């Protein structure tokens, strides 16, 4: 509808102003901090100096940062692949009617609604040296001594990734399931008549028709995974010895454990650029797909 009534802005302005003050301004402020030598003393005294790109240079040279960057890629790549496969299989399984379907579907949403402190502390116990996984493996005689799932050098990032896969199943399930529902069941039925097997139906009917939905699921999943903070902070706090940091937990630890606000801000800017870059890249793919379809 077209109307020139200025009164309409009463409806729109609060949201716009709110997001500008509390969402966008902090980003700008953060960028400014990343160019200064801000720590607790210089911040409270207001005596921080401009130091150009020095925070960035230090950060990029820092092996802890390099590790966190690598971890973020591993974490995102593995989470996304497994969440997608599991979510897709579940969506295919639920794409028919059977008794109690609504209840089971609600139960699959549980990882999403469970407060993160609850799932995080569960996994901390689950993966601990005396926890459930080791208890199971030891009692079956499959291992002689506990596997250090979250206390060694290499394993912790993979353990938190496994926890995150569980956490993300509802999200990919819901999106892919909704997409699948839009495909007429007759298509699958006529394929049945033609003697197509399950794999052929998935590959030649579901996947091509779902392409836009699949791209959306992967795009959003990627953005959501790159920024995960809470889960890793609760399970390992980036440790032991900073080997399981993601960019998010590293920046938080720099800011609030070490009070190196300037350096923390430079990590945040890099993470933000990664998020924005990924979003643009994935949207380009999406736009290209859509134009090739329509």
């Amino acid at each position: 509808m077209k109307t020139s009534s200025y009164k309409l802005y009463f409806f729109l302005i609060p949201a716009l102003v709110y997001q500008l003050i509390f969402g966008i301004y902090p980003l700008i402020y953060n960028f400014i901090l990343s160019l200064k030598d801000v720590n607790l003393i210089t911040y409270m005294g207001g005596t921080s100096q401009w130091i150009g790109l020095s925070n960035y240079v230090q950060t990029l040279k820092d092996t802890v940062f390099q590790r966190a960057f690598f971890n973020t890629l591993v974490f995102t790549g593995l989470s996304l692949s497994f969440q997608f496969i599991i979510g897709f299989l579940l969506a295919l399984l639920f794409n028919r009617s059977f008794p109690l379907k609504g209840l089971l579907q609600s139960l699959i949403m549980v990882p999403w609604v469970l407060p993160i402190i609850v799932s995080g502390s569960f996994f901390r116990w689950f993966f601990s040296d005396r926890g459930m996984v080791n208890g199971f493996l030891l009692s079956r005689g499959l291992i002689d001594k506990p596997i250090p799932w979250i206390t060694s050098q290499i394993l912790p990032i993979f353990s938190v990734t496994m926890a995150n896969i569980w956490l993300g199943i509802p999200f990919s399930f819901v999106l892919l399931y909704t997409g699948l529902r839009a495909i007429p069941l007759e298509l699958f039925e006529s394929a049945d008549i033609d003697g197509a097997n399950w794999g052929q139906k998935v590959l030649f009917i579901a996947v091509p028709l779902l392409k836009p939905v699949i791209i959306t699921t992967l795009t959003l999943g990627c953005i959501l995974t790159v920024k995960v903070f809470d889960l890793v902070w609760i399970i390992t706090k980036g440790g032991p010895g900073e080997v399981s940091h993601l960019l998010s937990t590293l920046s938080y630890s720099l800011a609030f454990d070490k009070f190196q606000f300037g350096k923390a801000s430079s990590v945040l800017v890099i993470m933000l650029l990664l998020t924005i870059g990924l979003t643009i890249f994935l949207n380009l793919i999406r736009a290209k797909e859509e134009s090739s379809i329509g």
Partner: protein
Amino acid sequence: MGKKRRAKEWKWTLIALIPTVIIILPVYFIAIGGFQTVAEIFHRPAYWFPPHSTLEFYNDAWVTLLPYLKNSLIMALGNLALTLVVAVPAAFALAKFRLKLGKPTFFILAFTQILPATAVIIPLSLMFTKLKLINNYFSVILGIAVFTIPFATIIIRAYIQGIPTGLIEAALIDGASLFRVFRSIIVPLSSPAIATAGILTLIMAWGDFIVSLTFLKDQTVQPMSIGLYHFVAQYGVEWNKLMAGSMIFAVPPLIVALLAGKSIVTGLTAGAFKE
């Protein structure tokens, strides 16, 4: 429906039950963990049923967490109020009118929604420190709303777009003011979407961790999530008390998930496919 067909459908229920049970298994182990001693929790292999159930640890956890409950409620409800007051009108303006600032606003909402929480919360905490807002409920409500406002606006907007524009035009021609149209047509007709957005907003604020962890250092204003974090972070975790407390804290969202599972599904998809 024939008996044979019926039986075939129940077969699918059984098959679907397997992954569902695996997915919710953690909740089961948390729930029974609260009935066991620490030694029993660490028994090899884990017990499937608590060997000597006791309500003692649930009781302990409840007493410890009770002071945090009030804070969780204030934060979650305060955030809900702020989110809806800002989001519903914006959703209306964005869904039904072509405004100069419409596109930029939508872009900013979509953009802030995907921002990493740390990228907003760390600088905000420095700003709030200078404004003396730290340890204040407002800081948390304001911080969480940065993420819930865009989320709610996008969900509600998608729904309002489906309300016939003619209805609004007719009311305006009859001399109703915009505010009247909003109050008497838009809000009642979009109540299902407002409810969905409200439920999701409540779940997000109730479960918040990072905003409270960062802005609330004083124990008397912290919510239950941080109360539980104190359990985890202390040396020699009392796992049974932690699991009992976790379960208590998880009950409200779990009930909502069971009662409003469908709304959650619609809400999440409306938020994702925003075009």
